[in-house]
C-alpha cells in the first residue's frame, strides 16, 4: 500500500501568530515538504492545481512536480487534482508526458473537475458542461497518449488533423490515471470504465458516504471487466495531527481547526473528528483509526494525508511528517499488508511494473 501526502497549497494566516507566509515562502515550503516526505519514507507527494487566491498551488502542476523530481529519488509525484475540465487536454498530454520522462516514470495523476465556479469562465468554459468536459477531454487525452497520429473532432476544442502529441509517453506507457470525485457517480463510472484508479477525497465527509462511492466504483470496475471488485484501485484522503500525548495534539491543533478554511467556525474539533477522518491525537490513535478504513471500503491502494494547511507553520508540518513517516505509516503498512489477500494489488500500477508486464524487459527500479 502507498502512503503519502497531498496539498492544496493554501496561503493561510497562522491563527496563533497572525503571520501570513508570502507566496514565495509558501511555494518554497511546498518543495521542502515534498523532500521531507521522501526523507521520512512516504511513497507519494501530490499537489492540487489552483487558479485563484488564497492558493499558491501551481496552475500547472508539472512545473512544481518537475522541480521536486529533480531533488528526489524515490517518491511518486502526483496531482490532487489536475483539472480535466478547464485545461486543454492536448497540454495535459504533453506536459505530463514530459514530466514522466524527467521523473523516469515516477509519477501519476488524478483528474478532477474543480469546484471553483469562476475558473470555468476564466478559461472560456461553462461549468454546466463540467461533466461533459471531463468525459470528452479525458477520452481525447487517452487517444493522444496511446495513438501516434490523432485525427479528432469533438464539441469543446478545435479539431485535430494528423496531430502527434509530444513527447510520447515514456516507453510508450501512458501515466497511470486516477479520477477524483466526492459526490458524482458519473466519475466513479468513468474510472471504472477505463480501469483507472478512483480516489475519494473524504476529508470533509462521513465514512458512510465514502463507502457508497467506493462500492459503486468497485461494482462497475468488475462490470466493465477489469478484474474483481476487490482488485479495483482505490485511494482515500485523510487528515491528522499528532503529538506524543493526545492532549498536546488537541491543544496545539485546535486554533488551526477553529479557524481553518472550509470547516472553521463551524462544528467543534470533537464533532468533526467523530464525523470525518480527521484524527487528532497520539500516533497510536492515528494508527487505530486509519487501520479500520479498509473495514469500510475494502483493502485499498493509496492513502494520502492533508498535512500542510490552515496556516500550520513549515516547522510544525515537517515535525508532523517525521511522526507520520517514522511512527504511523510503518505500522499502518504492516497492518495493510497482513490483511490484504494475495489477489488484491498492493499499489496502483507503477511504471516499472507496467513496463515488465508489457514486454518482459526487467528494469532497474
Amino acid at each position, binding site marked *: 500500500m502507498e502512503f503519502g501526502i497531498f496539498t492544496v497549497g493554501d496561503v493561510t494566516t497562522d491563527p496563533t501568530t497572525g503571520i501570513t507566509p508570502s507566496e514565495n515562502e509558501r511555494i518554497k515550503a511546498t518543495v521542502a515538504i515534498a523532500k521531507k516526505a521522501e526523507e521520512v519514507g512516504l511513497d507519494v507527494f501530490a499537489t492540487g492545481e489552483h487558479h485563484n487566491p488564497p492558493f499558491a498551488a501551481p496552475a500547472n502542476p508539472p512545473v512544481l512536480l518537475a522541480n521536486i523530481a529533480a531533488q528526489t529519488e524515490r517518491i511518486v509525484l502526483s496531482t490532487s487534482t489536475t483539472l480535466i475540465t478547464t485545461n486543454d487536454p492536448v497540454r495535459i498530454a504533453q506536459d505530463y508526458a514530459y514530466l514522466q520522462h524527467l521523473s523516469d516514470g515516477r509519477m501519476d495523476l488524478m483528474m478532477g473537475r474543480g469546484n471553483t465556479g469562476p475558473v470555468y469562465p476564466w478559461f472560456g468554459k461553462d461549468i454546466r458542461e463540467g461533466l461533459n*468536459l471531463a468525459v*470528452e477531454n479525458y477520452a481525447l487525452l487517452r487517444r493522444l497518449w496511446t495513438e501516434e497520429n490523432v485525427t479528432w473532432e469533438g464539441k469543446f476544442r478545435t479539431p485535430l488533423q494528423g496531430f502527434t502529441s509530444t513527447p510520447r509517453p515514456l516507453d510508450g506507457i501512458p501515466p497511470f490515471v486516477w479520477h477524483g470525485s466526492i459526490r458524482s457517480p458519473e466519475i466513479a463510472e*468513468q474510472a471504472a470504465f477505463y480501469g483507472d484508479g478512483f480516489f475519494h477525497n473524504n476529508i470533509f465527509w462521513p465514512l*458512510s458516504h465514502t463507502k*457508497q462511492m467506493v462500492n459503486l466504483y468497485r461494482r462497475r470496475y468488475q462490470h466493465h471487466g477489469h478484474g474483481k471488485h476487490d482488485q479495483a484501485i482505490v485511494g482515500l484522503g485523510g487528515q491528522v495531527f499528532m503529538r506524543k500525548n493526545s492532549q498536546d495534539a488537541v491543544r496545539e491543533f485546535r486554533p488551526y481547526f477553529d479557524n481553518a478554511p472550509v*470547516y472553521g467556525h463551524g462544528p467543534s474539533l470533537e*464533532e468533526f473528528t467523530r464525523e470525518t477522518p480527521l484524527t487528532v491525537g497520539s500516533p497510536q490513535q492515528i494508527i487505530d483509526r486509519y487501520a479500520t478504513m479498509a473495514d469500510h471500503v475494502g483493502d485499498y491502494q493509496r492513502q494520502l494525508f492533508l498535512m500542510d494547511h490552515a496556516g500550520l507553520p513549515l516547522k510544525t508540518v515537517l515535525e508532523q511528517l517525521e511522526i507520520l513517516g517514522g511512527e504511523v505509516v510503518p505500522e499502518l503498512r504492516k497492518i495493510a499488508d497482513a490483511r490484504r489477500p494475495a489477489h488484491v494489488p498492493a499499489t496502483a500500477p507503477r511504471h516499472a511494473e507496467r513496463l515488465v508486464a508489457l514486454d518482459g524487459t526487467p528494469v532497474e527500479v
Partner: protein
Amino acid sequence: MTRRIVAVTAGLSEPSSTRLLTDRLTEAVDRHVTAHGEAATVEVIELRPLAKLIADQMLTRFPSGELTAVVEKVISADALIAVTPVFTGSYSGLFKSFFDNLDVNALEGKPVLVAATAGSARHSLMIDHAMRPLFSYLHASVVPTGVLAATDDFGTPGLDRRIDRAAAELVSAVLGSVAGAAAGRSGFLPAEGEEREAGFTDRFDEVTDFAELLRRASS
C-alpha cells in the same frame, strides 16, 4: 396504510406563536385524514434546538448528530407542513438554512403546506413571494392555500377556516397520490444489501453506463 406527515416549525420564542399555528395545522390535517377513514402520524420538528447543527451543515455540507435523522424524516415523509415566522419581510434565516441544506431533489413531488406567523396581516404576500418560490425550486407540490396568521388573527374565525381549507388540500394531495412521494421516485431502490445514506438523496445504486455518458458529452 398509515401516512407519515412531518411539520417543520421555525419559531424561536418559548412559547412560540409559530408553534401554536403549527399545532393547529397538524390537528386539522389529522382530523381530515381520519374523516377519510385513513390513518396518519404527524410529527412536529422544532428547528430551534437544531440551530447549531444546521449552521454546521452549512459549513460542512453534511448533516450530523440528531439533524441527520430529522433530515431523513423530512425526505421520507408523505407530506410536509412548513411553518416560519416572518422576519424582515421574509422567512427566518433559520428556516431558509434548513431547506438550503437539503439536496435539490429532496422534496420532489412532495405535497407541502406553507404557513407563517407575522405581527400584522400586511405580511400576507410573503407566503406567495418567498415561500412558494423556495418550494417550487425544490420541486415540491405546494397546496393552493397558504396560511398566514397575524397576531390578531388568533382571535378571529377566519384563521380557522383557512387552516381547515389548507389542511383539506394537503390531505387530498396525500391521499390522492397512490403511493405518496415514493411514486415519483420509482427506481429509487437501494442496491442489494445497501441503503441510501441517511440525510441525502444521492443514489449510488444505479449509474448511467459510460457509453451513454460518452455519447451525451459530444452530442
